[in-house]
Structures are given as C-alpha cells and as structure tokens.
C-alpha cells in the first residue's frame, strides 16, 4: 500500500514539472493520499459498517429485550436472554457438539490431510487424477452435500448397501436417527467434504519447502521420516496454523449441513450453536433471544480469533492486528 502511494506521489511531482520548494506540493500529496485512502477504503468500510457493524450493534441491543420481532421493543429484560441461553441444556449441548467438531477436526483431519498431501506430493502414478478426486467434494456447495448424504444415509440406503456388499453389514447403523451416532456421522460427512481443501492447502505449502533442504538432509543421512518430521513439517508451520484457524472458526459456526441433514435432531443430539440460533430466532419468532445467542456465538468466535491471531498467527501475519513483530 505505502509503496504504491509513494510511487504515485513521486510521479505526480515529476509530472508537475517544477519541483517547487517544500510546502505546497507536500500538502497536496498528503491530500491526494487521503483521497486515495478514502476512495479505496470507503466503499468497503461503508459495506462493513452497514452490513456487519450496525447489525451487530442492533443485535446486541435487541438481545436485551424479550421481543418476537413485531412491534416496538418494550419488554426490557437486561441480560436475562443470556442467562437463559447459557442455562439451557440444549444450548449447552450445542456448545459441546461444536467443541466435538473442533477437536475431532484437529485430531483426525489435520494429520490425515497432511499425510495425504505428502502422499500426493510424491511422484506417484495418476497424481493429477487423484488430486482432482480428493478436491472434488470441496467444490460442492454445503447444501448440495447435505441433501446428497441425507439420501445416501437413509436406512437400507446406498451407504448401508455398500457396507453389506463389502461384507461389513455388522457396521450398519441408524446413521442419522441414533442419538449416539449422529454427531459421528455428521463429522464423517464434514471430513469427506473438507479434507480436499486441507490437502490442496498443504500441497501448496509443500511447494514452498526448498528441494535443497531435503537433498542436504539426505546427504547428511536423514531417513525419509526424519526429513519429513524435522524439515518439512516445521516449514509447513504457517500453512498448518492457517488451516487450524479456518477449521476452528468453521467448526464453531457449523450450520448448513446440520440444518439440512438433521435439523439438530433427534432430540437435540446434533444441535449446534448456529442451528439453535436459527431455530429459536426464526422458527419460534424469539428474535430478542435469538440475538442474544448470535452475540454469544459472535463473542466466542471473535475472542478465539483475537487470541489466535495474537499468539499463533503472530509470526505469519506481521502487522495485521498484532503490531510490529521485532
């Protein structure tokens, strides 16, 4: 940003022809810089304020009222909506379901996608086709994914048929109807859909690992595993940290798949914070309460994002919100 401005400014002064003594041109270039900033940042700022910041403030305000969306806000209840939400076993369950997805993603998807990326980075036959194959599900919209899996997972459906065909009939479950299974099922579908994204991300990260380092390690007598663990993984660090960030935020806000596949059921066994919010806000017209849930969800994501940026992404995103890193 600053370099571009500097270049433009210099051009202007030379174009003006007369490099006059200090004062006026500098003031003019200052003005120009401000104008540029206003022009470039203005529209985005306006959109952000109108569609993110103001609604956020409005929701925070609504959350203090018992309000069904109609008529004036008269029934001020203070923080009642917050205590009610946090005290509701269904919402507590929703938080735990989100946490389950967060942790399961980190424990299962992270190693899996790194391993697959390493595999696909090697010189194997049909590499391009395989890369395409693992990435394909990510291209589908989440709603389409959900509708497809909803039909595949019905009892005696395609999934059950495939398992039985493979002699694994004993593994067949009531994928979406069993309260003890449904979260695992959803996690499997999430993994199916998003593993490709992780793999592509890590493949890109692997391109940034200099070949010379591996060669040097080999010459020093390092085994393949040692090279991976001591050279490749540390250099993959920035990519891993970004993946973890996106994964956790995505898991905290999980909605589409759940809403289409289970509506949070059976009996709340797969409710997430976002599905709880929509359920209470739009299905029950409890807009004050729904706003409180939205603010809680926002606060959780925001605080996490801040801390993660501050402590984990610090070295990767210099100057973003962390200030200068020495």
């Amino acid at each position, binding site marked *: 940003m600053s370099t571009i401005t500097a270049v433009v400014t210099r051009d202007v002064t030379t174009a003006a022809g007369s490099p006059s003594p200090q004062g006026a041109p500098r003031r003019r270039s200052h003005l120009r810089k401000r104008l540029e900033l206003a022009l470039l940042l203005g529209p985005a700022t306006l959109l952000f304020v109108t*569609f993110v910041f*103001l*609604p*956020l403030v*409005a*929701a925070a305000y*609504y959350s203090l009222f018992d309000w*069904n*969306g*109609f*008529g004036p806000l008269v029934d001020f209840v203070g923080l009642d909506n917050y205590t009610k939400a946090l005290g509701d076993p269904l919402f507590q369950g929703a938080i735990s379901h989100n946490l389950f997805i967060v942790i399961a*993603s980190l424990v299962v*998807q992270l190693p899996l996608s790194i391993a697959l990326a390493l595999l696909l980075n090697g010189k194997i036959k049909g590499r391009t086709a395989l890369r395409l194959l693992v990435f394909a599900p990510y291209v589908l919209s*989440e709603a389409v994914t959900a*509708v497809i899996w*909803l*039909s595949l*997972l*019905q*009892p*005696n459906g395609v999934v059950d048929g495939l398992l039985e065909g493979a002699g694994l009939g004993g593994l067949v479950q*009531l*994928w*979406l*109807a*069993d*309260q003890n299974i*449904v979260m695992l099922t959803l996690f499997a579908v*999430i993994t199916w859909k*998003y593993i490709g*994204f*992780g793999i592509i991300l890590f493949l890109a990260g692997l391109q940034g690992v200099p070949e010379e380092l591996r060669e040097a390690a080999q010459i020093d007598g390092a085994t393949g595993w040692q090279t991976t663990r001591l050279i490749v993984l540390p250099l993959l660090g920035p990519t891993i940290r970004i*993946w973890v960030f*996106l994964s956790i*935020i*995505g*898991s905290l*806000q*999980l909605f*589409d798949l759940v809403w289409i596949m*289970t509506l949070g*059921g*059976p*009996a*709340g*066994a797969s409710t997430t914070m*976002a599905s709880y*919010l*929509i*359920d209470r806000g*739009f299905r*029950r*017209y409890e*807009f004050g309460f*729904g*706003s409180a849930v*939205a*603010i809680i*969800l*926002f606060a959780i994501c925001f605080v996490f994002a801040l801390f993660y940026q501050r402590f984990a992404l610090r070295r990767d995103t210099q100057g973003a919100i962390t200030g200068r890193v020495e």
Partner: protein
Amino acid sequence: MNTRSTRKYVAAGAVALMSLGALSGCSGGDGDSADGTTTLTFWHNGTTEPIQSIWQDAVDEYEKANPDITIDVVPIQNEDIDTKIPLALSSDSPPDIYFSRGGGQLATQAQSGQIADITEYTSDWIGDLGKAADNWAVDGVQHGVPYASQVVGFWYRTDLFAQAGITSTPTTLDELNDTVDKLKAAGIAPIAVGGKDRWPDAFYYNSFAVRECGEDVLKKGLAEGDLSDECFTKAGQDVIDFIATEPFQEGFNGTPAQQGAGSSAGLVANGGAAMELQGTWHKSVMQGLTDTDLDPLVGWFPFPEVDGGEGDPSATLGGGDGFACTQKHAEECADFLEFLSNDDIQSELVESQVVAIPVKEAAAATITDPVMKSVYDFNTEAAYIATYFDVALPTAAGSALNDAVANLFAGKGTAESVAEAVKAAE
C-alpha cells in the same frame, strides 16, 4: 473442517438478517402512483406448477377487470416465506396480500400492527366460505381469507394392506394396533413418519389430543396456550404407548418428510411402508415422488377412535391455506381475495388436485376421484376441526410443542413434557 469463506459470516450474517429485516422486506414506495393506479404486492408460496399459473392467471384476469389496479406477484418458496413474512411485517413496506395459515400464527403476526381489519369489506360474502374462514379471524376481526381446507388422516397403500390380509381399515386404536401387527407379520413397515422434520411427529400428539379432549377443553387449551388439562397428559401417554408398539419404519427419527424416495412420503409412494398420518396435500406430494400412478393404490381413513376419549369421534385435526391483508390497501386486498375465492378459481384448484377440500361448496362438484371425495365428505361431516396445534398456538409455543413431541419420538420426555414445553414458551 468448514472453511468455505461465507461460513465465516454465519454469525454476522444471522445477526444481519435478524436486524436488517427492514431492508429485505423493502419494496419501495407505497404503491400509489400519480396516474391513479394502485399497485398491490402479492406474496404466495405456489412456486411450482400448476398453482403458480393458477395464481398468475387469476391476477391477469383481475387486472383486466380492474384497470386501476396492478398486482405485483411474488412467488416465494414455502420454507422461505415463513422467514420472510416476519421480517417484512417489521418493515415499513410489507406485502399487501400474503400467504397465511391463519390461527395463532396470524394472531402473532397481528401484533405487528400491520395486519388489516377487513371485517367490513368481507362481511357480505365471507359466510359463503363456511366455518373455514373463522381461522383467519382473530378475536372476531377478519384479517384474511382461506382458499383451501385440509384435514389430517391416514393415507395407506391398498395393495400392501391386501398383501397383509387386511380387509377393512381400522376405526379404533385397537384395530389400528392389529393392523400394525398384521403388516409387521407380513414383513411390511407399517407406518412411515418423517421424524426429522418434527411437525409430522406432532400430528400424532395433536390427533390423540383431539380424541382425548372434549371440544371446549381443547379449544380453550389452545386459545390460552394452557395444555394442563388431564386429557392432554393422556394424549402424551397415548403417543408414548403407541411408539412403544414400534409401528414406524426403521430409523424414523432421521427420516425427512417429503425429500426424495427415502422420505416418509417416498416410502409410502414406492411401497416401502404401508401408511402415513398426513394432511390432504399428501397424495400429490407422494405422486411427485414416484412414476407409478397412485390413484388405484392409495386410500384414506381418519384417525381412529380412542377408548374413553372425550372428543367427538368425527372431529379431526386440520387447517387450511389462505391469504391475509396488510393495512395500506386493505379494501383493495379484500376485493382481490373475494375475486380469488370465486367458484371458477376454486374449481380450477380442485381439478388440478392442488386443493383437496375447496372452501366453496360449488367447487366440490368437480371432485371425481372417489378417495378424494371421501376425504372431502369426511371434512364436511366433521363435528369440528381442530387447527394444527403449531398454527393454533402462538408461534413460539407451537414450535415448542413440535419439538417436545419430536423428543417423545426420540425417547426423551414424559406424558406431561409437551404441556410443560408449551407453558415455558408462552
């Protein structure tokens, strides 16, 4: 992991939706232009054929007869319209005519202060629609007009019943249990239910309550949102006992109601289950999910009698579809709704099988299918119709009721828990 970039904004987006209702409901202007013509905005949920054309043709005809009126028709998908209406009603420019199921939902919407009182504009002709129109009135004030009535009963496969050696449809709960046993013995899933969507579960609790509760207790309970009478507890217990007989298809708590061949409607349509408790729209939904002509294969019988119940055995659960008016163009809206309920359009709705029970008696003459005729006759002869509880109650309580019944289906809760959930949501 969910990294699709838009997902990052679910929270912010939901917040935005919740608070920026004014924007999404915005249609701009008040619809009165300088040349004296009035523009009405008309929201309906008929996004599929044939109903979309029926409404469009009706509007075209109405505009021709009333050159000073222009109607801006906006078809909105059924699931979306329920979300858009509350947002529009909290804005400055709600639609002039919008789809409504009446009942407590309409009463909740009336709290917006935007819904019109069309009593004086409709008083001359609303009587022609019979008792169906009562559901679009709140405290004696008419807010809207229905175009169709519906009742809930069992749709069943005549071929599967015959295969299981069942010769007559059950009229009592005991007979229904026998029917279930016979179907099971024949290796047929007896009843399909779309438990994932919750509202189909609620039909069982509602129907049992209609049987267990006397008319006055039932109507008072729904009007006051107070289901503490013993008969409602009995209905809860009936549901628990009925589920215990395992009459439903495998994994019914994860089954969607109407999506695809694996849905409960799809199961019955394709012979995967023998019957389903559903509304009058169900035959056309099932027909949409199979290539087989269902006319000779599908029959209908009402919810069976329950021993010792206080309710009239001919009463039933039901409701209807209609339109409500907002204030800006109340008179024009009422006039248009009068036009919409004329015999011709009513007959067209019946002939296209969109509507099973027209609100105008004259249109009933066009019903030819014997099964549909029996449904129509049952509705005509019913002692009274109890509106779907989730529509009759205020929205929050109605939705809480559906959730509580769905919990019973998932094995959670007691006979009292439905009444408790309704009370908590009041």
